[in-house]
């Protein structure tokens, strides 16, 4: 009841719109400037992912940091082939990450299975199990390409807007595993 009245008042004054445009602008900036990446090394591209964080390429310049816990990550960087054994694990990792989250498929294996597309144990791309935002082709892509991929992701974040969506229901947290 009280909440409804408040909502009406907010609507009348357009304060919500004001705040969401103004604050969303800044939150969008923050969200795209600070992309914490899950420290997940699958195969070859993992080494290039590591190289992107080291002196010559230095992803830290662009706010790309690696966290080991999916709860604290924004980007799932899939850098290798997804085997049948790992398919449900990577879905679980994806589900453990809080929104807003993005997925980058790095390298041919993650895009389509790459050289292993004929294998009996490899999925044809990670997009068969989780949605992918940015594809970075290469086998493996150079670290420059990875940094460029993060640039593309930023463009995408600008376009879709990273402000808190107005459709979210209340402040109730989403509990993992609860329907």
């Amino acid at each position, binding site marked *: 009841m009280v909440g409804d009245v408040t909502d009406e008042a907010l609507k009348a004054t357009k304060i919500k719109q004001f705040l969401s445009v103004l604050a969303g602008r800044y939150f969008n900036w923050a969200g795209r400037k600070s992309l914490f990446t899950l420290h997940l090394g699958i*195969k*070859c591209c993992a*080494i290039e992912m*590591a*190289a992107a964080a080291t002196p010559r390429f230095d992803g830290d310049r662009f706010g790309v940091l690696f966290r*080991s816990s999916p709860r604290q990550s924004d980007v799932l960087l899939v850098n290798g082939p997804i*085997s049948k054994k*790992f398919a449900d*694990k990577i879905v679980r990792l994806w589900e453990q990450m809080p929104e807003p989250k993005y997925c980058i498929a790095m390298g041919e294996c993650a895009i389509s299975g790459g050289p292993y597309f004929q*294998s009996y144990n490899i999925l044809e791309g990670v997009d068969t199990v989780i949605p992918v935002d940015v594809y970075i082709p290469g086998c493996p892509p150079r670290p420059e390409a990875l940094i460029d991929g993060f640039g593309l992701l930023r463009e995408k974040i600008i376009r879709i807007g990273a402000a808190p969506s107005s459709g979210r229901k209340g402040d109730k947290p989403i509990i993992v595993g609860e329907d």
Partner: protein
Amino acid sequence: MAQMWITMGPQHPMTHGLWTLRVKVDGETVVDTEAELGYIHRGVEKIAEARDFTQITPYCDRLCYVSAMTWANSYIYAAEDLLEVEVPERAEYVRLIAAECQRLASHLMWLGAYGPDIGSLTLMTWCMRDREMFLDLLQELGGSRMHYNYPRVGGIKRDIPVGFADRLIAKVKLFEHRIDEYEMMLDESTIWLVRLQGVGYAKAEDMVNAGVSGPNIRAAGVNYDVRWAHPYSVYDQVDWEPAVEKPTSVKGADCYDRYRVRMEEMRQSCRMILDAIEKIPGGKNTNYANGDEMILAKAPTRAPEGASGFSHYECTRGASQFYIQGGGDGRGKNPYRLSIRSPMFITIPYVAKTMIGYKVADIPAIMGSFDPCIGETDR
């Protein structure tokens, strides 16, 4: 105290890849372990049965993503055994130089990845910085940063470029100083010694019996190196000696020994490269055209049924082996069966058992000191 199982992996900083270690802990002490592999099993052996002998090389590059050159070489020696090819000496020298550059890059990657295992983040960036030097050199040969597809059956894809030798010598000499720098940073840090010494003992005979190979057994005082024991290439013509660590009063190798032996091996690789580039037949500043008989011998493309090829190769993590049976599809154009023996596939279950009795905090220290690479493990 109650005991519990902890599942470390597949996504875990300790794993250096994608595998699972189940650890049963009693407080902070490890009482039982169990390794679980296969998360990036790609069926290379099956795919290779539908590829001809040249097409298999890129797959062998991608077996171990840190030492592509040595794995490709390893396959090529088996293919040459199968197809009965004699390789020009210049090509053997170039392969040796490329493989030793790759060994330096791989050991640097190991040291870099070992740093965060122990908690030293700076070591990671320093090592990766120096690794770039050798990746640049290998890139001049193969054209790519990691997967070179460089050796061919009967030789090499293309000759060393003009000026490569000077850059190689300059970088290797610089790196010899950098090794001293690392040792200054690590060996004189009491924390580094405290974490490594006395941790992860493994006895020499147990390791050999269990199939562990390479630097991991040389750390325990076993003087065995494929490069002289089952010789291939021209290692007998260059100046080097195997890096073997002296056993301490407790027999066997601890993490510190394994760290020392790899540092020593990097020195030996530098020595080898500097010697080989001077002795290379045909001159170090000559560039032969692609397919010249100095660098590429004529090789048949088909192998008869019943023929088999085998190679035993000192990869950066141990002895890798390829066994190829000829006479596959396309009237022998493809191998009938290609079998790959990865050193880490045998080592990882062994290491998992080595951790018993140590602390939880020692798990990354022990695991990292054996230098796991899951790409070759799962194939």
